[in-house]
Each structure stands twice: as structure tokens, then as C-alpha cells.
């Protein structure tokens, strides 16, 4: 029997799927640690700031000044812990980088459903979280565009955008300068379904740079060439 809280492992899922789930979980934990450490550091900054302001008005040899020094030293000890959390969270970069090319075959069975359901009012059966979604968007757009055009050579990349929940998806056509319109349409449809939006930074650019804004996204980098 599986441990409480652990979903049963579906043997039909490919190994890469579980690798992705594990990476996703670690990425979420890292984001949580970063957020907690940031907020705790601000609270510790308040404590040290206020304590030092009060201490400045006291006799340095007084009991009250000594108590305030203890408060500040304790806050600084807390900061050692938060900085350790930040350092640990920063070490997750390799876990948040996805090699799409290796995953294309693993996703090939899943992506057509996602493509067909894009734009539908109900969520697709494949419930992917934000960074997996970016992987799916790039892979799915590549597959869709390649299928429509009966060929391959479409190149896509996805990376973290400049703001929270933003990703930049680059869609490049095959040699010859054809515009990968179907890839852009797919990105837009998926973004809409997930409550986000996608805009082409420069529609005239043969390499479409699509700014994808989702409620939350944490992927570092993903790319694929099919």
C-alpha cells in the first residue's frame, strides 16, 4: 500500500513522467523555501531595526540594553538559518532544467489530448502544473506545427520571463523562413485555458518571441528541436 499522501504510481506512465513529477515537487519546495526565507529575513530586519533604535537611547551597561543585545543576536542567529534555506533552494537549478528533446517521446502519447482540448472550457484530463505546462506548451506546439506542415525542423525554447509567472517562448520556423503560426496559436490557446495570456513580442519577426504569462511558473529553461 502506498504511503498516505503519495499518489499511486501508474506503471503506464513513462519513467520521464515520474522524473518530471519529482523535479516539479522539488522546484515547488525550493520556491516555498525562498519565499519563507525572504519573508523571515524581513521580519528579522524589523526586529533588529526596532531593537537597535531602542537600545540607542539606553545606558549601554543597563540590563535593558543587554536584553536588547540578546534579542538582536537571536535574530542574527535566525538569519543564519534563513540564509542556509536560501542557499539550499538555490541549489535546485539542475532540477528545474528540462531537456525537451529527451522528453518528446515520453510526452508524445499525452500531448495530442492536450492539443485537442486546447481552448475547451473544461480542464483537460492532463493536469500539468505551471512549469510542466511550459514544457508541454513547447513540445505540443512543436508537434502540432510539425503535423500540420507535414514536416519537422520547428525549433522551440521556453525560459523564465522577466516577471513572476512569466515565460518567454521562442518559436522558430524551419529553414526557408516560414512563420510557425500554428505554434503561436497553440501557445495562445493553452495560455487562455490556463488563465494566462500570450503575446508575440514582434509579430513581424521571423523568430516569434512569445511572452507567456501564467498565474505561476517556475521553469528555468526548456528547449526542443524536432
Amino acid at each position, binding site marked *: 500500500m502506498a504511503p498516505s499522501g503519495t499518489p499511486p504510481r501508474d506503471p503506464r506512465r513513462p519513467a520521464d513522467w515520474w522524473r518530471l513529477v519529482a523535479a516539479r515537487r522539488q522546484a515547488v519546495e525550493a520556491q516555498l523555501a525562498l519565499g519563507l526565507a525572504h519573508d523571515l*529575513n*524581513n521580519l528579522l530586519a524589523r526586529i533588529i*531595526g526596532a531593537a537597535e533604535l531602542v537600545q540607542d537611547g539606553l545606558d549601554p551597561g543597563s540590563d535593558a540594553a543587554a536584553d536588547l543585545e540578546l534579542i538582536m543576536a537571536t535574530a542574527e542567529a535566525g538569519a543564519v538559518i534563513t540564509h542556509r534555506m536560501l542557499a539550499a533552494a538555490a541549489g535546485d537549478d539542475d532540477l528545474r532544467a528540462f531537456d525537451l528533446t529527451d522528453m518528446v517521446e515520453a510526452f508524445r502519447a499525452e500531448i495530442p489530448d492536450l492539443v485537442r482540448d486546447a481552448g475547451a472550457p473544461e480542464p483537460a484530463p492532463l493536469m500539468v502544473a505551471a512549469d510542466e505546462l511550459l514544457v508541454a506548451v513547447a513540445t505540443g506546439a512543436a508537434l502540432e506545427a510539425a503535423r500540420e506542415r507535414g514536416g519537422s525542423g520547428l525549433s522551440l525554447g521556453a525560459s523564465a520571463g522577466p516577471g513572476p509567472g512569466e515565460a518567454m517562448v521562442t518559436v522558430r520556423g524551419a529553414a526557408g523562413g516560414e512563420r510557425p503560426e500554428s505554434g503561436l496559436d497553440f501557445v495562445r490557446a493553452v495560455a487562455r485555458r490556463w488563465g494566462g495570456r500570450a503575446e508575440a513580442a514582434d509579430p513581424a519577426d521571423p523568430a516569434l518571441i512569445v511572452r507567456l504569462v501564467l498565474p505561476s511558473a517556475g521553469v528555468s529553461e526548456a528547449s526542443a528541436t524536432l
Partner: protein
Amino acid sequence: MLQDPLPGKLVLIVDDDAAIRRALGEWFHRSGCRVVEAADGDEALATFGKLQPDVVITDIIMPNREGVETIMAMKRLSPEVKVLAISGGGRLGSGSVLEMAAGLGADAVLAKPFRSAAVLEAVRTMLLPTQDPVG
């Protein structure tokens, strides 16, 4: 002995946390500085344009306009302004927010939390004239 560069300087403190702004403001006020405050990047840029401070101390993760963008805008307006970036941590892309701030215009960075001595020393160091190489 070098003269303390702080007295008389106008310091703009930018942080969305009022308690941190208050502590920083008092520390610099007690060191002889004039102090103005802003609660986010938009407010900071408006104040910056009006008052032309000598020093800006800015948090990075803030509502409306975050700190790195604010620093870049200020440096475009006034390249000589000295900027100290402060943050409780966090990451932008693959780097820490303070690394990114240092790469995009901050003259110095300081991780929260800190005591007054650390932040006053950081600003004094920024304000000291850079020494030309001898010879």
C-alpha cells in the same frame, strides 16, 4: 583622517515594509543625513525625479515596480547616484536578486537582516571618492 561623508547627504529609502523604512530612516537621520522615503518603485522614481537624492537604498522585491527595474531607471536618469540594494533573498531567473541588482547598476548590495553599522558602513564606502592609481 577622512571626513565622514554622510552628514548633509539626501538619502532616499525605498522599501514596502514601513518598519524597515523607519529603522533605516532613523539610522541615517542620526548620522546627519536628510531622509526621504518611498514604499515602492513607482513612488521612488517620482521622488527621485523631484529631489535628486545623493544616495538610494532600495529593496528589490516590491509591489508596483520592483527594485532592479527601479535601479536601472534611476541610473539612466542620473548615473552618478549611489545605490545600495537590500533584500531578504529571492531569485530572478537563475541568479539571486542581489546578484542581479549588482549586475544591473547597484553600487553595493546588502542582505537583510543587518545592523545599522553594516548599512552605514556600506553607504560611507560608496560615497568615498575612488582613489586614482598611484604612479
